[in-house]
């Protein structure tokens, strides 16, 4: 992955003859946001160890600016109506993966009947990871809590048993090991947002960093 910092100004960086990296040639440009490269892999990026908790302990909770907190156990969650979607995903570290297939519960289903004046959500995961986004970007068929990838149970290293899936934003917003949503009237930056990543993160406007 591309990691650089504080490069001394020594003129243009020399090109490494014949180096292309992992990028796939001939991708469909219209589907690839600016600055992204299509990959066939599924890179694993993480800020901490992969959690391994028994499913009996799992729960998903909606709390915060709601009339009534809601919570589902794993069995209850799996009993909810689910759908399978095919979406493109875009990571801020510049890789994109097209036509990924996920199965999960739409956030619309989870929020069905929830009364709230909240405009924002803070997503939280096992291990303490958080990310924030407008509530509107989770609704209207734009967000899911996904538990299957490519027809198989979601692997722990990719966020299993369940992760958030919000493909229209950079993939750091699709929190792995998701456990809850806090609905909020005021916005507050999550983990990476607090370190200078963009508060919203639209790949089509290349909103990688604060100020973009």
């Amino acid at each position, binding site marked *: 992955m591309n990691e650089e*910092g504080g490069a001394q100004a020594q003129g243009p960086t020399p090109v490494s003859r014949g180096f292309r990296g992992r990028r796939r040639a001939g991708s469909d440009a219209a589907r690839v946001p600016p600055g992204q490269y299509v990959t066939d892999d599924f890179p694993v*990026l*993480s800020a901490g160890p992969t959690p391994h908790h028994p499913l009996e302990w799992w729960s998903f909770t909606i709390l915060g600016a709601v009339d009534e907190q809601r919570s589902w156990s794993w069995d209850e969650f799996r009993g909810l109506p689910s759908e399978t979607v095919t979406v493109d995903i875009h990571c801020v570290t510049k890789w994109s993966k097209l036509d990924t297939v996920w199965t999960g519960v739409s956030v619309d289903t989870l929020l069905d009947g929830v009364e709230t004046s909240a405009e924002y959500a803070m997503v939280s995961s096992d291990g303490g990871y958080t990310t924030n986004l407008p509530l509107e970007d989770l609704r209207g068929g734009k967000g899911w809590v996904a538990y299957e990838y490519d027809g198989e149970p979601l692997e722990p290293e990719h966020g299993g048993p369940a992760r958030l899936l919000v493909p229209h934003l950079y993939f750091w917003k699709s929190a792995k090991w998701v456990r809850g949503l806090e609905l909020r009237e005021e916005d507050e930056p999550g983990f990476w947002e607090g*370190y200078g*990543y963009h508060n919203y993160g639209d790949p089509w406007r290349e909103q990688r960093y604060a100020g973009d």
Partner: protein
Amino acid sequence: MTDALDGNAIAGQLEEVFGREMTTARGVCASCGAASLLAEVVVYLRAPGTVARCRRCGALLMVLVTIRETTCVDLRGLASLDPRPMEV
């Protein structure tokens, strides 16, 4: 934890940021008080930023984020960081 590395993996990045070799610096975890050399902390490299965690308790020690060629280092997870070279 098998995909995690250690502080050796960020030795170059740390030297660039601090202007000196830092893997022999001694850090104390603000969460559990464990002391260790930066070479020995748990490092996750594959992320929008680099994250270093306490080997004993897993708490965040350092986060390094490089944005537009500037690297910012968050050291709030360290109660102290002493760059004196290690004595053997």
